[in-house]
């Protein structure tokens, strides 16, 4: 079902935890659909100095959080914003079709955390690219 890489990240998640006084936080997903992801950012000089996550969700959700945080750690906010869900899934050696939404959730969580940071900094919000995928449209658990 899952690739070795997914299992490895699920069994040994990187960056799992909470940041006290984070510079930005993003929480996405909902309990109805069985997955919630929370991303904590520590930002310095426009760069992600630290990132941590908390996830309620399936193996793919945990692995996606782990991989996504790993991929943005140390990157600039611009670079982090550009991380696509496909890149996360690819880095995990692929996800089963029914689990692709987990990688979308990770992308969304990062975006939300970055914009949270920007709001706190009094900066304008960055906009999602048109056509970006959404994990759960309108609270419905479609895939």
């Amino acid at each position: 079902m899952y690739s070795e890489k997914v299992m490895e990240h699920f069994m040994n998640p990187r960056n799992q935890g909470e940041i006290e006084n984070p510079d930005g936080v993003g929480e996405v997903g909902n309990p109805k659909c069985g997955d919630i992801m929370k991303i904590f950012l520590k930002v310095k000089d426009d760069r992600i100095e630290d990132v941590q996550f908390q996830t309620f969700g399936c193996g793919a959700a945990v692995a996606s959080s782990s991989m996504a945080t790993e991929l943005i750690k140390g990157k600039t906010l611009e670079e982090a914003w550009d991380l696509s869900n496909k890149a996360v899934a690819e880095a995990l050696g692929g996800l089963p079709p029914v689990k692709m939404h987990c990688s979308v959730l990770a992308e969304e969580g990062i975006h939300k955390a970055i914009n949270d940071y920007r709001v706190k900094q009094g900066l304008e919000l960055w906009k999602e690219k048109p056509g970006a995928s959404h994990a759960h449209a309108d609270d419905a658990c479609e895939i």
Partner: protein
Amino acid sequence: MTGRRLVYMDHAATTPAAPEIVEAMLPYFTERFGNPSSIYGIARESKAAIDTAREQVAHAINASPEEIYITSGGTESDNWAIKGVAYAHRKRGKRIITSAIEHHAVLHTCQYLERQGFEVTYLPVDEFGRVSLSALADAITDETILVSIMAANNEIGTLEPIADCARICRERGVYFHTDAVQAIGSVPVDVRAQDVDLLSLSAHKFYGPKGIGALYIRKGVRLDNLLHGGSQEQRHRAGTENLAGIVGMGAAIERAVGRQEEYARRLTSLRKRLLSGIMERIEHVRLNGHPTERLPGNLNCSFEFIEGEGMLLLLDHAGVAASTGSACTSGSLEPSHVLLAIGLEHATAHGSLRLTLGESNTEADVDYVLEALPPIVERLRTMSPLYADYRRSCNVQ
């Protein structure tokens, strides 16, 4: 899994075929392979073997052999019973009643019939998963042609009052079908005493092979055939007989019903040990299903703040095979309809774990799970934003 301990606690999903059952089947693949419809020696032997198996199945549920029709499993039996009655009696009425917690083999069949113009009532259940008899009685109208209520639920283990349901249906002149796939071998089943008209069973749930089952059709019940073709099964279910499978089912049901009482006693005791062990060791756990009126081997709990698939993966890593009502492999993201029907919040439903005990399980298995599970739950809770929120809310108070 090689070399590692394997504790299989997913007997509701499927059971291994018992070695003596496979032994009994073996000659029918290669030597005694004759097509029972033919008239030469090895064909007559096949016919005799099927007759014996049919008697074994009939005897196990107190039916007559001519009332047993062999199918490819529980799903086909459920489809046949429901579509068969629906199509045969649609002139008389187009209403069907079932419960909200049936297996998909019943529910999706009913939903298909809705698309064909039938009207289906899905009776709600109480917090333990039991249908209400008065709700059933109220739901029956003159156009109702069939009621289908399962004998035992596959997820939460709750036993339904099928004898009472059957009595109400009999009084109202409505056919009563029960999906007894989970019940056979675990609780007593008697089609005469319980007075059911149609009953589904599936061999792989009682240590027989997969891909073989039966539909009991009380003499006189009229329904359309589902599979048309040759004149097998008294002209009611076509297809060259799955000879080895049939022999296996016959042997397995005789074996299962013969040891049912002992099986139930043993599993009940293991289940209680498992439940109280979990309750002692882990906080924020909810038992799903009925506390006593349940399948002996079925334990279903919800662990707050975490999601089921993660539990399964970590349990698998520890060598424990279990199941969840969370929407992991099902291709949907909605949790189990059964858990929602008994009133669980979505998040709680997602955190359910089903452990179903069977022949192979020992007290040592139970104790092993009781050791393995708490750190798994702990670990997932540590990871969970819901648990962090909960902890924060406690600290605040």
